[in-house]
């Protein structure tokens, strides 16, 4: 198992350098003067010369790449033109929003998707099955931004005044605020990586409220999360439901399922213990593949629901031609995606003894 993890880590290293190289190359490909591209059009010649020299832009390309990797290794992603702040700071502040949104959407898609898939498979060709599979076909075909806008309109406008109305933007209602867990737990004096982690978590409204027991804000944060999570999670939900269904149907025809039945297990246990565990192996792979889509969709969802995560920051940076931010965020998202895929691989191996023990 350990060897498997190590091998996966080793394999990820060249990909990591590939990612960095692609982002680096894209930045160098931006037409025009790199100095003015990064510092803005009004930068003077003197400032530019200084800039070019300082960042080694007059050096040969391989050297420049080395400098860039060095900066990254120190956690330096450059300084945003628009915000005038280090990109790293922006990320610590905004990445938690994206992580939280993606996690909630993934949770929604996985739990409901597996549930619907299991029900569909065990009642094959029933009304539930037909409706679910029809819905799944529609679900994968609606663009995230369309679904997001329609949900926002329906729950905020059409259902306004009913108990089912939901807020269409932001993370907390005005007038409601949360005390960050760093304050609640008296960590304000703390420094170092743990403090960064604490800050990171306290920027996630739901987890912050959950960890510190602020139940009022928690309910409000959850209500704000429903629409974005549903908008973002619908495509993966549909794909996971379809995959679970077909995978479970395949597995239920296998010999060991007959053995489980011959043992005298209830059909429920046969499906849930012997069928589902095996059927979930390909589903785990599919979930891993959905993460790229989730991160892509997060860009759109955050824009629609006014959530200031990295996705929305990217779109803001596009309008402000803030290339440093785009570069930095692209790297962070891609590296995060790489890490998640590693975790998916490892959990796949954990679930399948044939891989774990080989």
């Amino acid at each position, binding site marked *: 198992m350990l060897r498997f993890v190590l091998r996966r880590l080793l394999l990820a290293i060249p990909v990591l350098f590939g990612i960095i190289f692609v982002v680096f190359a894209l930045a160098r490909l931006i037409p025009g003067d790199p100095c003015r591209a990064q510092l803005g059009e009004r930068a003077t010649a003197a400032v530019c010369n200084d800039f070019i020299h300082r960042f080694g832009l007059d050096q040969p390309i391989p050297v420049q790449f080395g400098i860039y990797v060095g900066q990254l290794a120190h956690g330096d992603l450059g300084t945003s033109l628009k915000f005038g702040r280090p990109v790293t700071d922006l990320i610590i502040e905004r990445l938690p929003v994206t992580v939280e949104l993606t996690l909630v959407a993934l949770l929604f898609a996985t739990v409901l998707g597996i549930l619907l898939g299991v029900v569909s498979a065990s009642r094959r060709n029933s009304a539930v099955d037909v409706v679910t599979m029809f819905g799944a076909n529609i679900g994968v075909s609606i663009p995230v931004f369309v679904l997001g806008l329609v949900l926002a309109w329906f729950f905020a406008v059409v259902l306004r005044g009913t108990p089912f109305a939901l807020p269409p933007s932001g993370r907390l209602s005005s007038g409601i605020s949360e005390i960050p867990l760093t304050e609640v737990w008296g960590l304000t004096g703390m420094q170092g990586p743990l403090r960064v982690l604490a800050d990171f978590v306290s920027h996630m409204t739901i987890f912050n409220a959950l960890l510190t027991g602020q139940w009022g804000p928690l309910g409000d944060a959850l209500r704000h999360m429903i629409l974005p999570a549903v908008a973002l999670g619908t495509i993966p939900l549909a794909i996971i439901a379809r995959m679970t269904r077909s995978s479970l149907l395949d597995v239920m025809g296998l010999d060991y399922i007959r*053995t489980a039945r011959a*043992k005298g297990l*209830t059909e429920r246990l046969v499906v849930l213990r012997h069928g589902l565990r*095996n059927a979930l192996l390909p589903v785990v792979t599919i979930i891993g593949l959905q993460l790229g889509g989730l991160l892509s969709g997060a860009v759109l969802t955050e824009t629609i629901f006014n959530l200031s995560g990295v996705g929305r920051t990217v779109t803001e940076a596009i309008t402000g031609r803030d290339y440093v931010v785009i570069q930095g965020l692209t790297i962070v998202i891609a590296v995060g995606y790489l890490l998640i895929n590693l975790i998916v691989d490892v959990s796949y191996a954990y679930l399948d003894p044939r891989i774990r023990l080989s």
Partner: protein
Amino acid sequence: MSISELREPRRRVGTTGERLLDVRGLRTSFTTRDGVVRAVDGIDFHVNRGEILGLVGESGCGKSVTSLSILRLIAPPGRIEAGELIFDGRDLLKLDSRQMRELRGNRISMIFQQPTSSLNPVFSVGRQLEEVLELHRNMKRRAARDRAAELMRMVGIPDPVRRLDAFPHALSGGMAQRVMIAMALACEPELLIADEPTTALDVTTQEQIIDLLQEMQAEFNLSIILITHDLGVVARVANSILVMYAGRPAEFGEADDIFYRCSHPYTRGLLDSVDYGAYRPGEHLHPIAGVPPRLDQLPPGCAFHPRCLYAEPICRDSVPEFGRVPSGHTVAACHPALAGRLNLHRAGAHASGAREL
């Protein structure tokens, strides 16, 4: 530790020879796109306590469907249409699903043709053994694990405690079948259905598994339905034999009656296609000329008549009744009068060493 020491006291002490399972008029059908196919069409036989019934026939003749029907494991689109399955005085077809589940793996167990794929790949073999003990014996995890190790030792698996944590993919076919047998015997069943338990194994392992089954049968006073197309094995171990053809019974009786006084041309053909008298491992059946018919395209009358050397016009018109013949066993009575000729012929064939049928 000997096997008898491992055994707990039996719940029910059966008398050897007492009738354990009586199958009457079993009919199982499958609904397909082209209509209803009767995979098993009116089978009668019985199994006595402590005896081995050999169930023989070519592939696709309904042997496996018969065995799955006994456990009521026929899944849609299949369905048991008619019949009685009297097990220890109760009709299995009249039990509710909970009562039926209590029997499965407990009083009636089953092992299969493909041992490796019959074990769940994501659970250790120990876990799969414990599961059945926890289910039917209400054992706690710890006790179930100890018992699982005992069972593994009993079926001849070396180093059983360590093997408990092994996963099925790490076992050879023979080892996997031993695990399956341990699992099937875990609750000391009265009836074990072995559906071609050796077909997927190599020849030496085949012998070992058959020996193991015989040993277990003697120790546990177990009844076994041994499904096979290997007449050699049947000749060696079976007390009684049911011959099936195209979903119907051809002949049923004591092993000796079948081997020396058979009354059905199909049985005759099977017997002549293997030199059972001097069984050699690995020798395959050389079936009668032609192939078995598809179950959805059965010929009219006796399904065997197109391949039968003794076919007469009447064979095309009427389905033979299953009834007793003078020697005391039951047979599809197409040619009861032939019996003498069939066995004479056999003797002649033997003498000349020819395989004319």
